[in-house]
């Protein structure tokens, strides 16, 4: 299936809730509201036309005043195409439902997004540090306004 075709089908199916973003033709992207995220992923996984059954990565992005974003990089192994699903988050209180039930591989990705960006994963049963030390208390280090801790050395201006 062609990517263009896929995206137009998805937009048709979900109407106003899924909005297309122009990024990379090889990996089309959709912006989905977080309230329907779980239902959306479930439907495109089970639907015979889409069969998006594999989650390759989750990335969180901090855009400062433009809020935060969770990107779910998905692909269909059988139909051989990729899709990125974006969810916009409020920077003051970022939270997103877990998709562990649909894609079990999301577990560690979600933990990573939580510990590095402070995105609250609603419904995740095991939110504890994965990459950071167990006794980490210095905030969310990958946020762009993170000030650093005692051990942090800022790169001097050249």
């Amino acid at each position, binding site marked *: 299936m062609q990517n263009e075709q896929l995206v137009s089908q998805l937009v048709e199916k979900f109407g106003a809730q899924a909005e297309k973003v122009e990024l990379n033709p090889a990996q089309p992207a959709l912006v989905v509201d977080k309230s329907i995220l779980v239902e959306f992923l479930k439907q495109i996984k089970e639907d015979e036309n889409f069969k998006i059954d594999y989650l390759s990565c989750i990335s969180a992005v901090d855009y400062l005043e433009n809020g935060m974003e969770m990107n779910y990089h998905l692909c269909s192994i059988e139909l051989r195409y990729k899709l990125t699903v974006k969810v916009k988050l409020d920077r003051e209180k970022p939270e997103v439902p877990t998709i562990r039930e649909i894609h079990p591989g999301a577990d560690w990705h979600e933990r990573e997004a939580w510990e590095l960006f402070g995105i609250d994963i609603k419904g995740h049963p095991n939110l504890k540090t994965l*990459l*950071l030390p*167990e006794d980490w208390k210095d905030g969310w*280090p990958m946020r762009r306004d993170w000030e650093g*801790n005692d*051990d*942090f*050395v800022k*790169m001097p201006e050249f």
Partner: protein
Amino acid sequence: MGVASKIPVYLEKAPGGGILVTSIDKILNWSRASSLWYMLFGTACCAIEMMCTGASRYDFDRLGMIFRASPRQSDLMFVAGTITHKMASRVKILYEQMAEPRYVIAMGGCAVRGGPFYYDSYAVLKGIDKVIPVDVYIPGCPPRPESLMEGCLKLREKIRKEKMADWSSDSAK
């Protein structure tokens, strides 16, 4: 007496054979410096260089150095690579599991002072000497096998200068 010429001993002939006379310091330091078994412990690209030095082209074996997969059997630990804060506590445990006397070589920029991750990093420990004592520092990113060899020779020199009187229970240094 090929062996006797290499060991720091004095050989005295006696009827039916001979007596070897040496000091405890000399014979212990000689044996320690000549069989530094090192622990297989690499966390980054420095480990590749360490493997290369252990392999036949550079050959650690000719210094009597053999890799061991367990800290219990090791005398020497190469901290070869980037140590993150999370890894630091594990490095300390490994160090404590080694039997005394134990030696540490900080290999490469990361182990010496954080290396390329010194600035703007929340995760990397800035120098392994914040966690465990270090005997020899080898700069480089990563150091070439020649540098690593040189570091080991320096450590051997250091071991040969040790005195029994300096031993203490918590550290062999």
